[in-house]
């Protein structure tokens, strides 16, 4: 009888754990839903603005009579919609859910956090309108006028509070690597935003110090805010979906602290050759080189966790997006470190190469990571399934192919553009003419990515309507072929086991 009692105990534990999970998921429902659906809205608006900006680059007369849609306004509107609307709102939704799940606690502030989601939207809308009607601060990544800080500040205070409370109340003593990253990101971002806003716009500061503060911010908002949330997601979802623990605790520890230490210093590589003291740029380059450490550790850790588990990519939508994101992270970071070098920057700086690089980071890494997180989290907070596996595939392939065409095409064109610009015998207009076919290819790639976004938005809309509610089990991307392969693999494994026996 004693042998029978043993399996009963974990079963009871498991059901208790399931219950907690359901409860924590339910506590997140309203807040995460508001942040996620708003994020998808800004993603669509950002895509439309992106296509407009892209078309205007090779058809300069397109909609040129409307001042509010001139290139110099549509382009920052696109960036801000994507960063503060899409990326940040998706990040906040994800980090709140992850914190509740990992700490096994309910989300605090059940009334104020959903309200913060609405307030954030008002802030973004206010900033977007300000840019389009001509009140941009003309400081890259900080175009929103100062009063927007009031809206963002209100929300960020609540989010810091919720994060700290969940950290204190957590039922699991041990903290997981994803929790460190979230904790770091949540504290870093408000500090970055406030200090950069002051240093770029307050009076009596040397104009070039403003430039340094500008790029200290713009680079860190990626490295110390979007990157931690993206990596927290990768560290959570890869082991979760594959069912294997993270390869090495010590590597993740090393990765976290070296990121915290070195990324901070890397931003000034955006000013190579600029009118600022040489030592500031040298520090930026050294910081960028040191980034090889955290990036390599994270890459090894994720790859070793995935080893032998790659077949899950065929079935799990979450894992597909997350692994695409994780691989892009390695790529964009190595590329970024190289791009910081003076000799590289001499060519690539001031060209479309930088634009390709930033899309490799914010899109191929972060955005794809957030798609992966949403494919996992939406069904859990709503207790419904995605309604269509083929549409998820369309979403994946349009965004994956679109972003690869975007990054490779513009990356190449930018490099040639920079080389041509550095040769004074080539007239400037020839450089412009050279880039036009590549700008057209970018419009095609961007349209493809946007098609993916609209498909995703349609899936989310059907999710909200409950179209997949009656489905049994998760929506997997399994096809007849992949099922057959899976059977064959199992058969081979059995055979091997028999041989060994």
């Amino acid at each position, binding site marked *: 009888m004693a042998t029978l009692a043993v399996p009963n105990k974990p079963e009871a534990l498991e059901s208790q754990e399931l219950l907690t999970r359901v409860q924590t998921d339910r506590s997140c429902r309203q807040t995460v839903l508001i942040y996620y659906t708003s994020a998808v809205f800004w993603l669509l608006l950002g895509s439309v603005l992106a296509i407009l900006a892209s078309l205007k*680059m090779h058809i*300069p007369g397109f909609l*040129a009579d409307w001042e509010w849609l*001139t*290139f*110099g306004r549509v382009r*920052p509107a696109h960036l801000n919609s994507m960063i503060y609307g899409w990326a940040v709102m998706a990040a906040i939704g994800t980090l709140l859910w992850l914190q509740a799940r990992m700490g096994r606690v309910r989300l605090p502030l059940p009334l104020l956090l959903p309200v913060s989601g609405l307030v954030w939207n008002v802030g973004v809308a206010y900033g977007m309108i300000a840019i389009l009607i*001509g*009140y*941009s*601060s*003309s*400081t890259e990544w900080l175009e929103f006028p100062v009063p927007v800080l009031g809206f963002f500040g209100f929300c960020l205070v609540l989010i810091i509070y919720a994060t*700290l409370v969940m950290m204190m109340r957590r039922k699991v*003593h*041990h*903290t997981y690597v994803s929790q*460190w990253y979230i*904790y*770091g990101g949540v*504290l*870093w971002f408000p*500090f*970055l935003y406030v*200090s950069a806003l002051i240093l770029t716009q307050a009076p009596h500061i*040397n*104009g*070039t*110090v*403003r*430039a340094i*503060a500008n790029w*200290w911010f713009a680079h860190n908002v990626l490295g*110390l805010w979007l990157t931690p949330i993206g990596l927290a997601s990768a560290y959570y979802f890869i082991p979760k979906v594959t069912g294997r623990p993270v390869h090495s605790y010590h590597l993740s*520890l090393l990765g976290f602290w070296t990121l*915290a230490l070195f990324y*901070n210093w890397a931003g*000034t590589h*955006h000013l190579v*050759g*600029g*009118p*600022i*003291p040489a030592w*500031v740029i040298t520090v*930026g380059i050294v910081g960028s080189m040191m980034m090889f450490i955290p990036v390599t550790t994270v890459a090894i850790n994720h790859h070793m966790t995935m080893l032998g588990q790659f077949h899950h990519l065929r079935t799990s939508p979450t894992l597909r997006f997350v692994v695409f994101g994780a691989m892009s992270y390695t790529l964009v970071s190595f590329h970024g470190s190289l791009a910081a070098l*003076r000799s590289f920057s*001499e060519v690539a700086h*001031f*060209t479309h190469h*930088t*634009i390709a690089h930033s899309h490799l980071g914010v899109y191929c890494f972060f955005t794809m990571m957030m798609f992966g997180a949403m494919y996992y989290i939406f069904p859990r907070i709503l207790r419904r399934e995605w309604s269509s596996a083929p549409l998820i595939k369309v979403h994946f392939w349009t965004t994956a192919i679109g972003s690869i065409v975007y990054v490779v095409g513009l990356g190449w064109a930018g490099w040639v553009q920079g080389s041509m*610009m*550095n040769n*004074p015998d080539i007239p400037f*207009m020839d450089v*412009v*003419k050279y*880039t036009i076919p590549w*700008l057209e290819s970018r419009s095609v790639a961007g349209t493809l990515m946007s098609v993916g976004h609209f498909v995703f938005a349609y899936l989310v809309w059907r999710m909200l309507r409950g179209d997949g509610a009656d489905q049994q089990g998760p929506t997997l991307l399994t096809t007849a072929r992949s099922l057959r392969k899976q059977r064959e693999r199992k058969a081979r494994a059995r055979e091997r086991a028999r041989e060994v026996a």
Partner: protein
Amino acid sequence: MNRSLFIFIGVIFTVVFSLSGLVLVPDWQFSEIGQFKTADGTLYPQPLTGPPDAGRHVYMDLGCIYCHTQQVRPEGFGADIERGWGRRRTVMRDYMFDPINLTGTMRTGPDLANIGARQPSRTWQYLHLYNPVITSPGSIMPPHPFLFTVGADAAPPPDAVALPKEWQTPTAKYIIPNSRGRFLVDYLMSLDKSVDLPEAQ
């Protein structure tokens, strides 16, 4: 690593450390920079006031920085000087009064650090802003018709700029810049960093 306080202190320390090192130290190091007295006794640079400063706001709100830089890289690093974008590299002193950073990061179009010296014709600037391909065939810069009104009267007002013959239509024979258009050109005309500075030799 289970102590949240430890992570908290580490996280705050790293970011404050970099802010001090990268931003506050250069600000303190160069707070001593003053204006430079040129050979004829004038001080360089001068803070922008009046119409050029109003034009700076137009430059900002139209998003010119997304395609144009305002910085000349040193000789031997890129071809900025060989392209004629400036006689010398630009240095911190050039920007000491800038209320916002407009040095830029993108050169879809050419650098504008010295555009006032390089293209001193206001007529050229107006025609170029109205429709860039009039003066620069092949340009992909967006036209800015909203900075102008067009007219076709037989006796154009004194501030009208005649369109070249091949660009005239029955309803548009000349353009008149509105106040924002004039301010913007005032600003562009003010961009001249050709004063020789000892630190830029």
